[in-house]
């Protein structure tokens, strides 16, 4: 080999390594920008609302006096609405995703459905609110209730859950499916024994992205008629008399955290801004807690997968 060529190759390698470093730094800057935005927001809310983060803040109803106002009805409302959303959206979304990936014939009808589901994810949330107002509130007579809000948000995140489910299923190596079929398993057996367990991690990620979007939604919830002042709680789901479980809370009027925050930011009295910041902090914390739960679930499930 000629010495000149060797030096040329060395230069080439050096150049590529430089690019490597440049891209590494670029990526780091991008990450830092994203993180800094979040941290600034988070710290700012914490500083503004720190004084309001007392136990009473969680156990008090809204009030015209900023010092006495709390988020009791809001955080309970948000929790219950998210519960309904998850119970409805997860089974529906996962089942639809599995059908599209495993059962649906590959023809133009399926393609149209697929394209439309992806497009649905981009529909403004207020449109879902209007749909829900006509359909759930009036047509089904569910009224302005927790059930209506939960169903509305479920519709909103359904496309996200479906798309995530499909992506998770696609990530499973084809060999596993083929091996199962080769042993004579039916489609349902393959789905139940392999597809679902292996894709749960990816599905959970999708569910979390969806739920995180839903928990911060204000527009569709206002449209279906969430209230601003509500100083009582929905009926308890657990009763002392037979049958011990009550679903009356589903039909109860409610408010949610984003609406409470919105209301406080629009108050004339500036003291309410601290309440809004504190409530915003709690809302972010609730989202984080939800994410934490999903990560924990995912880790537990991954442990059992052996490929």
């Amino acid at each position, binding site marked *: 080999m000629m010495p000149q060529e060797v030096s040329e190759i060395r230069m080439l390698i050096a150049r590529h390594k430089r690019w490597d470093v440049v891209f590494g730094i670029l990526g780091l800057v991008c990450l830092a920008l994203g993180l800094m935005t979040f941290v600034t927001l988070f710290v700012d809310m914490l500083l503004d609302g720190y004084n309001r983060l007392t136990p009473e803040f969680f156990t008090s109803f809204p009030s*015209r006096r900023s010092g006495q106002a709390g988020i009791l009805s809001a955080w309970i409302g948000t929790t219950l609405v998210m519960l309904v959303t998850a119970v409805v959206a997860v*089974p529906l979304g996962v089942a639809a995703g599995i059908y599209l990936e495993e059962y649906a014939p590959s023809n133009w009808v399926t393609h149209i459905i697929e394209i439309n589901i992806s497009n649905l994810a981009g529909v403004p949330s207020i449109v879902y609110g209007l749909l829900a107002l006509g359909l759930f509130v009036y047509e089904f007579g569910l009224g302005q*209730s927790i059930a209506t809000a939960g169903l509305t948000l479920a519709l909103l995140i359904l496309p996200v859950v479906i798309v995530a489910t499909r992506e998770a299923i696609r990530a499973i190596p084809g060999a596993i499916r083929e091996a199962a079929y080769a042993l004579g398993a039916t489609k349902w057996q393959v789905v139940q024994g392999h597809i679902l367990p292996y894709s749960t991690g990816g599905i959970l990620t999708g569910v979390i992205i969806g739920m995180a979007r839903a928990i911060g939604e204000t527009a569709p919830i206002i449209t279906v008629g969430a209230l601003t*002042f509500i*100083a009582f709680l929905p009926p308890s789901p657990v009763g002392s008399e037979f049958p011990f479980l009550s*679903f*009356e809370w*589903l039909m109860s*009027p409610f408010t949610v955290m984003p609406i409470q925050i919105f209301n406080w930011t*629009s108050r004339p009295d500036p003291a309410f801004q601290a309440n809004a910041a504190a409530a915003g902090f709690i809302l972010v914390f609730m989202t984080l807690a939800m994410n934490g739960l999903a990560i924990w679930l995912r880790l537990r499930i991954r442990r059992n997968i052996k490929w």
Partner: protein
Amino acid sequence: MVSQKLKLTVLACALGITAAGGALAQANVVKIDGSSTVYPITEAVAEEFQKSEKNAIKVTVGISGTGGGFKKFCRGEIDISDASRPILKKEMEACTAAGIKYFELPVAFDALTVVINPKNSFIKQMTVAELKKLWEPTAQGKVMRWNQVNPAWPDQPVKLFGAGADSGTFDYFTEAIVGKSKSSRGDYTASEDDNVLVQGVTQDVNAIGYFGFAYYAENTGKLRSVPVVNPRGQAVAPSMENVINGSYEPLSRPIFIYVNEKSYLRPEVQKFVAYYMKHGAKMSREVKYVPLPEKAYTGNLDHLKKGKLGTVFGGVAEVGITIDELLTREAKL
């Protein structure tokens, strides 16, 4: 999967069962919705009322705007509608069509306040004509500088901030200034959230905006109110006294609650309305509104007792009504 199927079935059953139970559960709830302007008073009353009733009666208050509130009211979905202007003809027709009759109860006065940046040195007062020149629909895209409104003012750009089109504040301001309800230029920063308007005017020397008095009262350090020339030629600044003595015209306005006649048959609604009339004055003052004289509230109670239904405004959005005129008119119902 099996457990998920089960959950779905349970949910479906639950929805079915509770749909029937829902009507029952709401029997003890007083439902209120409507104007964001009236909201602070109603919220204060609701809060105290629930405490005094030891939470045996539940009250919910929503904010859908005056127009949105009347829509729900005339569909019979709520018991009481908060309104920052009298009921309009269209809304009266909707209510009549649905067989809904109502009591009209004025609860307080508000002073719509025109505000400018405190650093603004040239505006000492404004006439209704000047405000009209600035806000009428034909001004859109044309009247963009202060000297176009008044030649004595500097050649500086105008930045406008005002109420969103769904609010009673917007309806009233346009009626009082432009002369026709809902008739306004569209090229301004509109928001239902008055704090957005406060922020906007605070940050721009050339800004002008309008909103309810309470927002000005909480931000007197950051904003300056503009005295508006009344029909008698005096420039009057918005204040509690000037609303009470009737000199702040035409931007002072009565605000109301409308009570569904059928709802009023229910004892919990009766109790709530009685409580509202008894403590309305105190609560209004607390949240920076102008309370009505005592006889206005007793007059309201008298109307309720004698079953005097309907409105004294005939579906027309009138402007410049003073407290005295309002009382005279309500007394004739």
